């Protein structure tokens, strides 16, 4: 569903991604792990062109997204994103955060959008907070709203950029539980994470990145149980 070919990314003269090839199948949950600075967030952000691609190609359902002729806004509407810092819109209520994009982009009526919004907020367990503002919510609650906001566009895939890294430990679980449910429903997900437990339990594939390369890739059993590369072993030795 998402195909990445020979992806290179430079920040100025610094090469952050040094040729990534990878393919993500529909309904797969791919967890990307690796030390900080390994390029995993940049890799994720390239998939919806929040970072400009220096070289290579990214296809989403066979549409080359880094083609100047492709309307990137249409692609982004199909690929949700959840950020480490939540990035909820602080000037809108929770429900408005969720309904804004469907109303703006899909031209959904307010009634329909709000019905959808309440449904999604129920799904993440926060419908009671629909008329609160983000600043009145805890970090974990904000992140769950951010997931509902991404779902409101009915995306074909969701990208998660370290969704639990900015959370207090006791709030990590509530967010991971929502993500687990999504995975069980068959959502295609790419998750950059430090939560090895989540990667092991929920991931269909685990990708280990280091130094701008994909060092190793496999099922959670393979990658955690029997890592091939020394760098993978060293990394897992430190985090497990």
């Amino acid at each position: 569903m998402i195909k990445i070919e020979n992806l290179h990314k430079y920040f100025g003269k610094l090469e952050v991604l040094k040729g990534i090839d990878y393919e993500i199948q529909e309904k797969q949950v791919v967890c990307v792990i690796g030390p900080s600075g390994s390029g995993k967030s940049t890799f994720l952000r390239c998939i919806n062109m929040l970072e400009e691609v220096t070289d290579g190609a990214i296809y989403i359902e066979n549409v080359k997204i880094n083609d100047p002729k492709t309307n990137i806004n249409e692609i982004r509407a199909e690929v949700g994103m959840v950020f480490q810092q939540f990035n909820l819109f602080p000037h809108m209520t929770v429900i408005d955060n969720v309904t804004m994009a469907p109303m703006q982009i899909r031209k959904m009526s307010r009634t329909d959008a709000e019905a959808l919004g309440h449904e999604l907020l129920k799904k993440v367990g926060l419908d009671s907070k629909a008329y609160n503002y983000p600043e009145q919510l805890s970090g974990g609650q904000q992140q769950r709203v951010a997931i509902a906001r991404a779902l409101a566009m009915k995306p074909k895939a969701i990208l998660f950029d370290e969704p639990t890294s900015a959370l207090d430990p006791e709030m990590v679980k509530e967010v991971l539980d929502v993500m687990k449910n999504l995975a069980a429903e068959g959502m295609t997900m790419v998750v950059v994470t430090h939560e090895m437990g989540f990667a092991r339990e929920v991931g269909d594939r685990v990708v280990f990145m280091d130094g701008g390369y994909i060092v190793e890739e496999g099922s959670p059993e393979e990658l955690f149980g029997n890592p091939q590369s020394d760098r993978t072993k060293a990394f897992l030795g430190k985090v497990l």
Partner: protein
Amino acid sequence: MDIFDLRWDIVWNYRDMFIRGIGVTLILTLSGYFGGILLGLFLGLGKLSSKKWIYWPSKLYIDLFRGTPMLVQILLIHLAVIPTIFGHSLGYMVSGITALILNCAAYNAEIFRAGIQSIAKGQMEAARSLGLTHNQAMRKVILPQAFRRMIPPLGNEFIALLKDSSLVTVIAAPDILYASKVVAGASFRFWEPYIVAALLYLVLTYGVTKIVAFIEKRFSNSYVPRKAKVEGREAR
């Protein structure tokens, strides 16, 4: 002159001039300010543009008007620019308002630019990641937040402009200061008319300060409406 022998009756005799002066000062300031906000918004967005042919003219304009004295701008516009374009003067009001709009726009542009840039990058990214265009993201997400942060500096700019509007006296616009000059010239008394001018400006700027403080209190700090705050779990 004995300052303890103040003759307020002289000023009182010229009260019509002062009242007219207040009117002229307010008209100049309000037109200059709101014209300056409109033009300033375009200039501020221009200075944020990645297109060089939009960025550079905006930057040049802002640098030019912030880097030269308003007094010089007023004289140039009244005595040189307008007569050259139209063949004759269009009067002190047109010159005065034009000068104030052009000057105020340069300062407001920087307020808009700074306000927009102060909104965290993640807000734009979140909006774009949902599929919003740059313009939609600006309109729905960035500007509503930036506006709140712009209230205090925009209030300061209004006060600065109100005081700077007294410079139009040099082209004989009959504002507050002009009235004082006339009284002083006619009576050879200086304390009374200029104290009155100072007091009138003080009352006006103080009034504006209060209005800005009120608006600031309503919009700044928190996005949560006060009513919701009392009902919500984090009532303060």
